[in-house]
């Protein structure tokens, strides 16, 4: 098929819809997509079923017996980390926001590596199943209950968005009613996670990572080749260098770090810093990300898994940059030139739109399977966190002498219940839940992250500090979202193009500051058993009051946090020399959700 035929095939349905481009999958694409999906789903269920044989203790159910190898765990981390939003949403946001989205993605990757440096080794040595358990043993039952409640909120915020996405893919691609698609997708993932526990989840996530990598790279290579990227197309992450002059001519601000939304909105230094506080620090606090480190056979294996994950995550992330670039160039040079616009609904499907236009059907159907695999892997990870949080953490607090068998049974029950509740919530989700993934990062950054890092690296952090910090961070996350950044008449955060994401600059800093100040004010940690355990999670077999108890670290943290809170409240400065693009190409996407 020639390029002209492909373009015509893509544009034909659009022409009928006047000025708004409408995507319609061909019947062959839908049929192949269904075949791929059925095969994939059968495989997931089979893997879940065979994993059931390996479950005999709660360690098996919640942490896959802590026997998952480096490469396998790295692949599982990759798919756990990348959601449906990564697969489809990144391209749409890149299309709309350009460099701002790139900054967010780099930060997302950074957060993942930061966990493995500052948090994961110690949590792995602690030998539990979740970060909430660590918080419970380090800071007491009240802190644990608060952290589990925060976790349920986070997981639900994340889950509903993913489930909704799965339902939408079924609806748009297969012409299956949204509810049916949601129920099918939701039940499949709930079944294999419940039946196979962490073993089933880990093996499935390994398979899903392979599917996702192939499903994004192969169509992108075809797309780049067909739009004239040349030989570089064989390696999509760096395969579009030849097209850069064309993009620079069509949209000079595409690679501009000082502006966003086609060069129409300035993007300041402060906003870039806010991305660090929300995305990177938020990732550190996300319990389903940290959870994968508990399944590694050793601390060294956990680090090796991270190394593999960095490789695979980079491969997929930077391929989405390539496909986003191609989609933007195509819409600027072809669609916009003909007076056509892409509506928001179509922008979310740009990967499939481009694949259908520029690759053979058997390749074009791959992103559909990849998107569903991405959604299911993240849903699976989150259901496991819910199952562990309620079925293990809360249950073992309420029934301290519960047998190992009953803890495992509770895991089965609450994983299944979590899945069913999410399906019900996703049937008709309130609007605010659909933009909630962003909120999840801000909440995680303002509750879990300061408590985890200070709990590991500073013996002086105590339960009063942790509880106060989580409450202050959690309440501010909600309040600043509600009031759009102001409190008691003071504009504490300038939301700007980041929207709600920017509030983490203040709420997370306030949480860090509170943990330190309240811990100091209440005399620090005095419980000998806890002090000993802090030494133990760093690998020490003996205890010493000299270790991890200096004042420089907490005081530096509190000072920096206070300075950032003040800076956050100061008026922002527009980048010098910024001039809004005179004519912005037509777009119809909403700005970053607030």
């Amino acid at each position, binding site marked *: 098929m020639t390029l002209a035929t492909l373009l015509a095939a893509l544009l034909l349905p659009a022409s009928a819809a006047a000025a708004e481009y409408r995507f319609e999958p061909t019947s062959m694409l839908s049929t192949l997509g269904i075949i791929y999906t059925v095969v994939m789903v059968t495989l997931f269920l089979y893997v879940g079923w065979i994993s059931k044989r390996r479950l005999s203790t709660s360690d098996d159910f919640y942490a896959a017996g802590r026997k998952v190898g480096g490469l396998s765990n790295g692949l599982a981390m990759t798919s756990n980390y990348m959601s449906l939003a990564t697969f489809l949403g990144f391209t749409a946001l890149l299309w709309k926001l350009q460099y701002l989205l790139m900054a967010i993605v*780099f930060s997302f990757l950074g957060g993942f590596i930061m966990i493995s440096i500052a948090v994961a080794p110690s949590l792995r040595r602690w030998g539990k199943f979740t970060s909430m358990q660590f918080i419970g043993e380090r800071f007491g039952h009240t802190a644990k209950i608060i952290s589990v409640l925060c976790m349920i909120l986070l997981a639900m915020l994340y889950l509903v968005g993913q489930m909704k996405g799965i339902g939408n893919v079924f609806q748009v691609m297969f012409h299956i009613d949204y509810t049916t698609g949601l129920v099918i997708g939701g039940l499949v993932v709930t079944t294999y996670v419940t039946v196979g526990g962490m073993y089933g989840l880990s093996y499935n996530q390994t398979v899903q990572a392979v599917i996702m990598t192939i499903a994004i790279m192969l169509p992108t290579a075809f797309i780049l080749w067909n739009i004239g990227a040349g030989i570089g197309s064989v390696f999509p992450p*760096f395969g579009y*260098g030849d097209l*850069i002059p064309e993009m620079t001519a069509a949209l000079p601000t595409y690679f501009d770090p000082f502006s966003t939304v086609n060069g129409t909105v300035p993007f300041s230094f402060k906003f870039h810093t806010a991305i660090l506080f929300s995305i990177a620090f938020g990732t550190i606090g996300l319990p389903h990300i940290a959870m994968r480190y508990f399944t590694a056979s050793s601390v060294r294996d956990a680090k090796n898994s991270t190394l593999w994950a*960095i490789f695979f995550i980079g491969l997929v992330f930077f391929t989405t940059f390539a496909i986003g670039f191609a989609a933007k160039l195509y819409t600027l040079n072809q669609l916009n030139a003909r007076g056509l616009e892409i509506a928001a609904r179509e922008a979310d499907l740009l990967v499939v739109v481009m694949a259908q236009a520029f690759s053979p059907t058997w390749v074009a159907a791959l992103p559909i399977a990849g998107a569903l695999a991405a959604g299911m892997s993240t849903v699976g990870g989150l259901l496991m966190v819910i199952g562990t949080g309620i079925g293990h953490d809360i249950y073992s607090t309420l029934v301290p002498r519960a047998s190992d068998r009953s803890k495992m049974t509770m895991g089965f029950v609450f994983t299944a219940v979590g899945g069913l509740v999410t399906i019900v919530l996703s049937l008709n989700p309130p609007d605010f839940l659909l933009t909630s993934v962003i909120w999840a990062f801000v909440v995680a950054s303002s509750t879990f992250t300061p408590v985890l890092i200070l709990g590991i690296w500073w013996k002086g952090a105590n339960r009063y500090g942790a509880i106060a910090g989580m409450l202050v961070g959690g309440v501010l996350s909600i309040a600043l979202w509600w009031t759009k950044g102001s409190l008691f008449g003071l504009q504490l955060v300038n939301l700007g193009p980041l929207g709600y994401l920017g509030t983490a600059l203040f709420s997370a800093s306030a949480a860090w500051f509170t943990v330190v100040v309240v811990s100091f004010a209440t005399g620090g940690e005095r419980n000998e058993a806890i002090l000993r355990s802090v030494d133990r999670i*760093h690998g020490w*077999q003996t205890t010493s009051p000299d270790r991890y108890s200096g004042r420089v670290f907490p005081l530096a943290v509190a000072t920096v946090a206070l300075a950032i809170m003040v800076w956050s409240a100061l008026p922002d400065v527009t980048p010098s*020399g910024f001039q809004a693009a005179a004519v912005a190409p037509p777009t119809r996407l909403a700005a970053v959700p607030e």
Partner: protein
Amino acid sequence: MRQLCRKECVVTLVAFLLVTVMTHIFPLYFLFPELTQMTLFGFPANYMLAILLSWIVMLPAYYLYIVISESIDREIARTSLAEAEEAEEAAAAVAAGGLAPAHGGD
């Protein structure tokens, strides 16, 4: 022992800060805006630099971190084992010392 603990903290802090810089290089462009006018391998330098640092350079850098942190972990294990043995011997000596007067009293 205290030196070792400090070494662990410093290595972690440096690694954490390096990762932060390598994956959040954008604020640097406010200091050196000319980077946005240059090209690297056909791509705008500011874009390519961000990908190279956060992925291609990150892989060997993270491997180096694994090697260094693992050697510190081994050192901690060795040192604390020796400490534990010393403490055990000291406890045994105290116990033996404590018993002596009793025996002597007989």
